[in-house]
């Protein structure tokens, strides 16, 4: 029998070594500031608008915050979202 020993070409990733826990969830959407983060993929804004309308219909006191992102979004825009929102809905990851 012959043997062929080779290096593994697939490298580990940062993520495979460190898992980030999720942010704490909110209990209810009522009274919350909800960011609608649109990354400018076509019609993501249309979907977010529909979701935003439904949020306001179903949950009292929801405030919608429009976030004009890019792909990816600048860090200063994300930092502002953290200040102004309690939760974020993003669209789309295609």
């Amino acid at each position, binding site marked *: *029998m012959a043997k062929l020993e080779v290096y593994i070409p697939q490298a580990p990733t940062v993520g495979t070594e460190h898992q980030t826990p999720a942010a704490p969830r909110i209990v209810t959407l009522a009274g919350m500031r909800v960011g609608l983060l649109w990354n400018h993929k076509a019609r993501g804004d249309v979907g977010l608008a529909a979701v935003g309308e439904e949020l306001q219909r179903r949950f009292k006191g929801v405030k919608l915050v429009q976030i004009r992102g890019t792909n990816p979004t600048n860090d200063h825009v994300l930092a502002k979202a953290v200040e102004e929102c309690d939760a974020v809905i993003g669209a789309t990851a295609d």
Partner: protein
Amino acid sequence: MLDQHKLERMGLPCVIIVAEKFRASAETHARAFGAGSLAFAFVPDCFTSIPDDQVRVQALAAFEAIIEGLTSPRIAPYTAPEAPAPETETFEAEDLLACFHKMNRVFTERGWTDGFPLLPPTREAVDDLVRGSGRDPSEVVTILPPASGIATVLHIAANAAMAGCVAEEMPVVLAAVRALTTYPFPSRTALVSTGGYGQLYLVNGPIGKALEMNSGTAALVPGAPSRVNMRLARAMRLIVMNVGRAYPTLLDASTVGSPRKFNMFVAENVEASPWVPFHADRGYSPEDNTVTVFNTLSDVDILDVFNSAADGIARTLAAYSTYPSGEFLGWEERWGKDTNHSARVLLLVGPEHAQMLAGSGWTRDGLKRFLHENARIPAAWFKNIHRNHPERNAPEYRWVMDAPDDRLILATESPEMFHIAVVGGTAGRSLSLKCYGYPVTVRVD
């Protein structure tokens, strides 16, 4: 998704709307980011492909999943980091050739291939490449998108070995990897987009000739004259997959793709160029060895054996230097210069065309200005892409929506959007490559 990962790290709960066809890609991305608990709300179709009324229906159908994503505790399906992979693997068979085939079968099953047989990354081959790099094998050259792959010299060398690279070529490979991840090159877009982005690496300086790279006839053609170009390109393809994890249908979401995703590596034909080397225009000395990476989105052969006057050649080059729909016009202004959303053109000008132009006094900068002024598209093409949401256009382009269809508009935003290098043989042809984002030049150490 990267946005949501960052927001979650900053303590903000998020949910992302994703088309079902991208479920595997989304979950792979999340794991690669170390964000396995990201919340998704899946919808049947890509919003880009359906009319507005269907978008609304599908978004509302995902409403409960959106609420759940924001309110229910998130637990990653896996909590422990992956166990460290062994450094090597051994294949046993009746003889070495059978071992070689077994290795290829297994690596292909794992997706670690570009589709062609892989040379075995043996200890001898890889250690030789590491020696050629002059660096420690455990040195981390960069963190490679899209999966934040830890790009050590060893892993880069292993993939270069599979491509058939030799030790002397390693400094160029390392420089190419660094260029790929140097801001402002749009590496993430380049590697994960639904578009068929393929990287072209342009080598300048004496190292091109020293390595016997092809800069002349058939410089971009697979074959013996361009064997060095091809294996360097192949190395980069294997690296972005096996180190960056940009595997097609997973993190690489190419819709149709392109053979340019094999990547392209070429040296500038400075002997035949009437102008200073490409990198000299970027502030380097002609004796510096550099690699410049371009994010190409298409390539078009330019045939002009008919004009013998420089302005005729220039007009031909301009005609082939347009973005047919003007789809990226104004994006940089609209979204901010630091987002690097810019439409550019790389012209690989054949020596014959270059010498005709320079012989009549055309400088590289003069040619760029001419191309900018004369590469135009009908307003109708721009309006066709932007008509459904004209408010998204950059303010300076909104007037186009009211212009007559046959009005010719500039196809580029400035002369600086053009990049010109001399490559190829002499037969009345050049090559125009549409590019997205800034090209980046790095020095070869």
